[in-house]
């Protein structure tokens, strides 16, 4: 899967449509520091990494302090997890203070930590569970992807969006948010401006989902498993999907990760389908080797997750070692959640125009209902 650096995932910072600058893709590589050589590049990441760590740890401290205070003074207050605190602190910083450029490269590593966390989380699932829940998830994922693609393309047409912008929004909504948009952008030869707008819409809606989904889940008294499946199916960006689940509960976060990983695994097929469609229209380059294209687009961290789960199932790790791997995974996610808050700047996101945001928002609401129906149906049939 492809990713972006911090400045790119924050579309307003390099808006091709606003300032005339083109968004610069980092490709599928780690964000680099400012120096030219490896030590310089690593040194360039340190300030941002320290900021991610500081915000994450502050989130943990807030959770423990507030919960401890409320317990000691018998005050009834909802248990706000470190996940939400880390995101809130990051959001406050990125929206009220101009974060100096020196932090950008390190903050941009949040997606790297997300993938490290997902692979390590494989140690919390034996392969049998992965295959059972993953199998059910795959059925739901296929239905969700088909429904989301059709719906978003129809809404795009209805609201008069440019066809390639509608395609990017559809891919981002159906599969895995920003990463899917970047993967599709190159494959369908879309304009940079379209991808900037689509990314802005997906990120704005992802930030909204962090608050809305847990509230709805609690209102409907959803079980941890059902809620995890729902967020894994309905929330677009992987970081936000996992964060929404983790805000609800630890179990919901784990299930959300598994379902979202199954959804991410479909990225190659969806992007290939659109690449073939646009190439037949004469508006994109032809894909010569479809197998190689699928292998290139397939997210490698999905294989890593399965491999670690396989090692666990082969009893390669003792109980304390599994605990240690689980905690390492939590630390990696902590850096990710801090990054989610730090790279979200609402003012810049809303600069990208109302219509794509409206189409995205309408689509998200309908997809949330569709997937909620799917989860409740699957719960009745398979006991998800």
């Amino acid at each position, binding site marked *: 899967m492809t990713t972006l650096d911090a400045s790119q995932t924050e579309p307003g910072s390099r808006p091709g449509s606003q300032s005339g600058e083109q968004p610069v893709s980092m490709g*599928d590589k780690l964000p680099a520091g400012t120096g030219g050589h490896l030590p310089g590049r690593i040194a360039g990441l340190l300030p941002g990494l320290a900021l991610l760590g500081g915000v994450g740890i502050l989130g943990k401290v807030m959770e423990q302090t507030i919960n401890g205070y409320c317990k000691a003074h018998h005050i009834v207050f909802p248990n706000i997890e470190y996940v939400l605190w880390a995101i809130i602190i990051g959001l406050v910083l990125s929206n009220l203070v101009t974060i100096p450029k020196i932090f950008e490269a390190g903050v941009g590593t949040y997606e790297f930590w997300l*993938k*490290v966390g997902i692979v390590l989380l494989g140690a919390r699932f034996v392969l049998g569970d992965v295959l059972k829940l993953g199998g059910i998830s795959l059925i739901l994922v296929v239905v969700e992807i088909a429904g989301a693609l059709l719906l978003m393309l129809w809404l795009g047409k209805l609201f008069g969006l440019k066809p390639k912008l509608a395609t990017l929004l559809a891919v981002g909504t159906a599969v895995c948010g920003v990463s899917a948009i970047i993967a599709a952008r190159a494959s369908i030869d879309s304009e940079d401006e379209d991808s900037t707008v689509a990314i802005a819409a997906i990120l704005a809606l992802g930030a909204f989902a962090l608050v809305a989904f847990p509230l709805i889940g609690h209102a409907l008294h959803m079980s941890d498993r059902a809620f995890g499946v729902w967020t894994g199916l309905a929330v677009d960006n992987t970081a936000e999907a996992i964060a929404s689940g983790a805000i609800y509960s630890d179990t919901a976060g784990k299930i959300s990760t598994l379902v979202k990983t199954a959804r991410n695994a479909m990225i190659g097929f969806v992007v290939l389908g659109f690449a073939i469609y646009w190439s037949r229209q004469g508006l994109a380059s032809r894909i010569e080797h479809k197998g190689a294209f699928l292998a290139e687009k397939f997210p490698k*961290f999905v294989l890593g997750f399965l491999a670690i789960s396989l090692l666990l199932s082969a009893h390669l790790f003792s109980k304390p070692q599994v605990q240690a791997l689980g905690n390492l995974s939590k630390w990696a996610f902590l850096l990710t959640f801090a990054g989610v808050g730090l790279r979200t700047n609402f003012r810049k996101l809303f600069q990208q125009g109302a219509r794509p945001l409206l189409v995205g928002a309408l689509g998200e609401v309908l997809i949330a209902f569709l997937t909620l129906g799917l989860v409740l149906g699957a719960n009745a049939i398979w006991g998800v």
Partner: protein
Amino acid sequence: MSNEAAKTLKAPTLSLDSWAVLTAFLLAALVRMGLLKSIPW
């Protein structure tokens, strides 16, 4: 050396996904070998 030749000789760069998988496996190996024992949370 021409630019083309330099391009051909350039070592292939790893993707973000591959780096993440390698890092996770390195951490798992350190835990398995007992070099990383208890990770506080």
